[in-house]
């Protein structure tokens, strides 16, 4: 097991020794700081820390998702594109373990990215606008449940975002393993992630039962936080968080199985 940690350390090294990764993380922090500072300087009325956080998350989360998807789409394909896969695979490790080490280090990157967003939005806004305690989620995030605190909402929000991030990066990871070309994998994955909102709306127009099983209808999990018990219980037609999670789990298994199958079975001709 200790040895496997060395493989993950290698993958982390390959992510974090590239300027790209630092630019991504730096950009998330800088953007937060820039928006908060510009708002505090130019706004006429006083802005509250939680309101600003809520607003910034709408920009930062999609951006963070794009960054994670880029890393995921590149992590396998770049080894093929650059030809380094040959020297990577001819070691006393099965292909499965090599792929797993890549996947683990990708998840570490996703965790770090979300942590950066979490910490930087809360910290920067507290510094710029002053920390405000005892705020309820109903006031700032438009949650119906009056008993939920802003902190509790933040934590649940990030947890659900983590779930949808994992699904999208796993999709990109699969595309990466299947297509073996960085440019194609990044392009295709980004296209899917960027279009997911639009596609979701398009699909919701379709009045067929299978639409409920389309991936794009379930990537926005945080909407369940906002509707909650008050509304969700009364509306029979409404999908539940449990249903969405089950559908995502189904896709997740398919993505993983395909990535593993393709990576371990196919000849390396790079």
């Amino acid at each position, binding site marked *: 097991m200790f*040895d496997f940690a*060395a*493989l993950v*350390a*290698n993958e982390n*090294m*390959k992510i974090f*020794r*590239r*300027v790209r990764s630092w630019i991504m993380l730096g950009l998330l922090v800088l953007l937060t700081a820039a928006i908060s500072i510009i708002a505090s300087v130019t706004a006429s009325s006083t802005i509250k820390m939680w309101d600003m956080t809520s607003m910034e998350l709408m920009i930062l989360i999609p951006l963070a998702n794009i960054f994670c998807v880029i890393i995921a789409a590149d992590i396998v394909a770049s080894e093929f594109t*650059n*030809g*380094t896969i*040959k*020297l990577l*695979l*001819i*070691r*006393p*490790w*099965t292909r499965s373990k090599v792929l797993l080490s890549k996947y683990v280090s990708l998840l570490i990157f996703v965790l770090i990215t979300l942590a950066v967003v979490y910490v930087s939005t809360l910290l920067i806004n507290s510094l710029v606008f002053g920390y405000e305690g005892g705020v309820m989620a109903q006031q700032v995030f438009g949650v119906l449940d009056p008993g939920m605190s802003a902190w509790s909402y933040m934590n649940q929000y990030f947890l659900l975002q983590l779930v949808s991030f994992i699904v999208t990066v796993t999709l990109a990871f699969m595309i990466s393993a299947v297509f073996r070309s960085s440019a194609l994998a990044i392009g295709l994955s980004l296209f899917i992630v960027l279009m997911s909102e639009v596609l979701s709306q398009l699909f919701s127009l379709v009045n067929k039962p299978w639409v409920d099983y389309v991936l794009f209808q379930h990537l926005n999990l945080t909407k369940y936080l906002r509707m909650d018990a008050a509304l969700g219980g009364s509306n029979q037609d409404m999908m539940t968080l449990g249903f969405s999670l089950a559908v995502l789990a189904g896709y997740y298994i398919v993505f993983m199985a395909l990535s593993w199958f393709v990576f371990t079975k196919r*000849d*390396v*001709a790079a």
Partner: protein
Amino acid sequence: MSNLSQPIVQIKEVTKRIGSKTIIDNLSLDLPQGEVFGFLGPNGSGKTTTIRMMVGLMRMSKGDIIIGGSSIRTDYEKAIRHVGAIVENPEMYKYLTGYKNLLHYARMVPGISRNRIDEVIGLAGLDKRIDDKVKTYSLGMRQRLGVAQALLHKPSLLILDEPTNGLDPAGIRELRDYLRRLAAEEGTTVFVSSHLLSEMELMCDQVAIIQAGKLIDLRSLRPGGGASVGGTGLPAQVLFEVDQPDEAARVLQETIRTPDGVPVRLQVRAGEGAIVLDALRDDIAELNALLVAGGIRVYAIRSLSKSLEDQFLEVTGGESVV
């Protein structure tokens, strides 16, 4: 050096088909331990494909490859432990320094110390540039880094696909001397593919020649593999024109053994009514006497001494890409 008679690599009737194309056709080859073994063939003959199968990058359609007693097919992790390799171009992580690249591969095999990393850096002559990013390296420097990475875990089998590609004459010479030393002193088997035939001649104990995926020739370039009745000098190929080539072959193989007791390796050219074998100049008269004593009529004796390049062109028919 352990048991020399046990080949470190056994390639057993390996066939590779991609689509309807047969790229490697029923190839069998044993690599003895501690030899520098050359792998020659024109462009597209299947050298790289064979090497890819040896290191598990490609699956065989048929057959098996045993390295150090373990099958690359069913016992990959164990078999590959014996192997250090460069496959085609030495691609490295360009955004990492040379040192980080070596560290990366060192971490993948337990028990490689920092000292060993420094040692291979010294061997590859990269001391001055090892902390520079690989994207600033020249082709030859990347090739050196490729060799360094292959040597890290002191493999008992070193597979090098065109390792001299991009090296300067001094670098080629250094590599050649180093590979010979590795084979002689540490008993490492070196399997090199190359287009530089004159290089192979200087470096290899044995060469296998493949064409269109088939093994077409296997020959020894060192004294000992050919006939030796005690003469001196370097062996050269000699052709005996005789009346019964098969009978002549039988006579010689019965009487002449190499020092390890293997019957002399010779080639029967029934069409030309001749047999060909490696022999020292002093032995030619001896061989002739043996044939005559065995009731064979000898019409002519010719030396076929040629450079490997000529031989290569001869056996491959001088074709370019297949």
